[in-house]
């Protein structure tokens, strides 16, 4: 029924079920932004930038004892197989919200009263799992901006293809597969701050996928740390 996994247990791009796609991260890629990062996650190509802390407009939106966090996840018209209408879709609005909520627990917003911190995530090319890669890039950009943080947020999804739980689905696997569960975790705080589920899991598969995605997040976290180290002490680009 599905040719997503072959007889050797390999996926269409040759990966094993528990294998991540190739990942590349770079911190500090944009000149104007206060902080920025670029991530390639399989064919996903995503740029994240942070502006702030800065004044809030309109003023009555500011909060006396902390910064407000704004987040936009946005896909460029050329990022998808069929051209995407430039106006923000309902999907983009929802993802902007869950990403903001995934990032907020990492930030010490009370250090910046009455200000706004804006996180912009631009998907230049998308290929399944862009919200997870977006979270990871945005967290790097926040660190690059020097915002006080208690942890990084690292994102990775797991799903089900051809009846099997698998790590990090690409576009085809997402569309033709059975289920997808994007996750973001805060490795040091031990918290799950993004979790969504599309598709059917038995109770057991749910647990398997959750653990697999968590492992993926930890690998992403290692690369994030490497990328930050490279930026501040090394040559600035990391590949997995």
């Amino acid at each position, binding site marked *: 029924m599905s040719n997503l996994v072959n007889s050797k247990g390999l996926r269409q791009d040759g990966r094993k079920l528990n294998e991540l796609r190739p990942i590349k991260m770079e911190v500090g890629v944009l000149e104007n932004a206060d902080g920025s990062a670029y991530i390639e996650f399989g064919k996903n190509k995503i740029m994240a930038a942070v502006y702030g802390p800065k004044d809030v407009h309109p003023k009555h939106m500011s909060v006396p004892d902390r910064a407000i966090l704004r987040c936009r996840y946005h896909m460029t018209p050329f990022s998808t197989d069929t051209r995407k209408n430039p106006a923000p879709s*309902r999907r983009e609005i929802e993802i902007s919200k869950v990403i903001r909520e995934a990032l907020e627990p990492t930030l010490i917003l009370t250090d910046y009263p009455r200000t706004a911190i804006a996180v912009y995530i631009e998907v230049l090319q998308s290929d399944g799992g862009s919200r997870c890669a977006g979270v990871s890039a945005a967290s790097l950009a926040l660190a690059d901006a020097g915002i006080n943080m208690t942890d990084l947020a690292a994102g990775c999804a797991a799903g089900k293809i051809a009846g099997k739980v698998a790590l990090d689905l690409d576009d085809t696997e997402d569309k033709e597969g059975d289920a997808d569960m994007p996750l973001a975790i805060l490795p040091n705080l031990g918290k799950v701050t993004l979790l969504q*589920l599309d598709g059917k899991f038995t*109770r057991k598969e749910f647990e398997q996928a959750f653990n697999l995605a968590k492992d993926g997040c930890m690998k992403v976290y290692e690369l994030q740390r490497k990328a930050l180290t490279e930026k501040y002490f090394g040559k600035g680009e990391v590949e997995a």
Partner: protein
Amino acid sequence: MAGKKAVVVEHLKRDQMLEVVSKGKRLDGRGLLDMRPISIEIGFIEKANGSAKVRLGNTEVIAGVKIQTGKPFDDTPDKGLLIVTAEVLPIASAYAEPGPPNEEAIELARVVDRGVRESGMIDLSKLCLVEGKTVLAVFVDISVLNVGGNLFDAASYAAISALVSAKMPKYSVTKDGEVKDTGKIVALSTKLIPVSITMAVIDDTIIVDPTLDEEAVMTARITLTSADKSILCAGQKGCAGGFSTEQITFAADTSLKKGEAVRQIIKKSVERGKKKR
């Protein structure tokens, strides 16, 4: 938007709420994993193909289903359409403003949509009349009448109940592809009753079906939808806080268990609705 109110609640009730939760209780007397009373009135909107008015505690929601012919999407020429919208009507809360749906309303609609779609309760390929040309579009429009906490579940129960009880014209297709209303009325074919259960974290403790006050102090929220006794089919974590791994596991178990109870309530309400008509 809800900022001012939240502040007031925090100062007055926060300590009190944390105290009772730490003792395994709730301010309204419920146990941590108890739902508030659910009442479902089927067929409230006679002009809709299906409808349900749901009361979950003091949250009130109406969902109406309209089924019309339409054009399929280019990439699914052989499938009907499912379109879910949600509006928190300005009558529902001092903090709801008229206007296009904000991110909360969009998330609400999309989480309900996910539960319906991913459970497979509706076989969209059965809603195709003429491939690439004419399909049935199932609109599920959700109007929140009163905001009283846990909109996700109330909206979901309303939408599911409206769909399960929906009736529609039987269409026939002539040889040259013309679609005709046969004049007969049939039920919208549905399998399964997906049920969402929303849980919140207060003082690191998981509670089920949060009230408005509880939402004001919760640090994180998760909605998990089960397709039946053993299958989870949709999920959405919310709010600026997180869950531990154990809490996620506990939430999955709780969703399956509490979901089955709600499933029976929906079934009975739909049965009762059928008899009334």
